[in-house]
């Protein structure tokens, strides 16, 4: 449900960047969503499409990269992607691992037309 307000925040950020780039034509915005971010990529894409059309930013594509949860083992420092909530280290079997990523909700990049 909050995907629409998140889509709106993305547009606001793009507007700001556009100003900073002196009105450059932005064609695509890249987004990173972690699996722990609580944001549904499909709902977000839909909300984004609805909001962006009929604005000065259209046409503007949204590309979403979905990021899995990542843990680091406190013993052997092995970094791994968590699958099916298996939080134990696949390298040494230790249960002591900590989350180092997967709650991202970030604007990764903009694609700009060359003038």
């Amino acid at each position, binding site marked *: *449900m*909050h995907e629409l307000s998140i889509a709106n*925040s993305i547009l606001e950020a793009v507007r700001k960047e556009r100003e900073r780039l002196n009105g450059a034509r932005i*064609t695509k915005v*890249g987004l990173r969503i972690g699996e722990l971010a*609580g944001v549904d990529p499909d709902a977000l894409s839909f909300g984004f499409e609805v909001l962006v059309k009929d604005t000065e930013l259209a046409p503007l594509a949204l590309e979403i990269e979905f990021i899995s949860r990542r843990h680091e083992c406190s013993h052997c420092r092995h970094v791994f992607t968590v699958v099916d909530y298996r939080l134990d280290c696949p390298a040494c079997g230790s249960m002591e691992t900590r989350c180092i990523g997967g*709650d991202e*909700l*970030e604007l990764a990049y*903009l694609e700009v037309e060359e003038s």
Partner: protein
Amino acid sequence: MTRLPLEKKVLSENDRLAARLRERFQERQVFCLNLISSPGAGKTSLLECTLERLSPNERVALLTGDIQTDNDAKRLARFGFPVKQITTGGTCHLDARMIERALADWPLESLEMLLIENVGNLVCPSSYDLGEAAKVVVLSVAEGEDKPLKYPAIFFKAELLALNKIDLLPYVSFDLEKARAYARQVHPGMEIIELSCKTGAGVDDWMEWLARRRESARAEKALPSGKA
């Protein structure tokens, strides 16, 4: 076509306002909690239990968020602590700006604890930092024990899981062991308190957790390094 790296948080504006609130809370020594659950899990009941047990001299205030009605504010006001209803008018979560606005005419100096009851929703509120010291997720046994796996974001971000309505356990097919295991799969080491706001079972554990958490927040404040 040129690709420009941006590396910016989508909710950076909310995060900025939340950081400002957190700083104000820390400066004024106000302990702030953000209560999140699905509708009907018992956030308001838990607050009622809490207010009932607090000394009337405690300087506690409440903000309660709903899409419509001020029913919750009315329920909470009878304990004599200041309560303000935030009616979002359709928005499914509270954000930092709503909190800032609601606090505009409340002097923080006069407060020790601010309890925020979010809009009933296990998804959206998890994305919005309100400047709180901790998030608490309330889950009732009338829901499914697999909620932590279905809504991992909030169970990952909340410090405590308050498992409410345990008086209903004989009547529902809720597997307590599984619920605990699922919560800790998402959030290893998560603190879990089982309670019933109806019978009062476990409420003392909750009050103890609250006292302990307030104490540790106070100790944190004594250190100059603020945590993000």
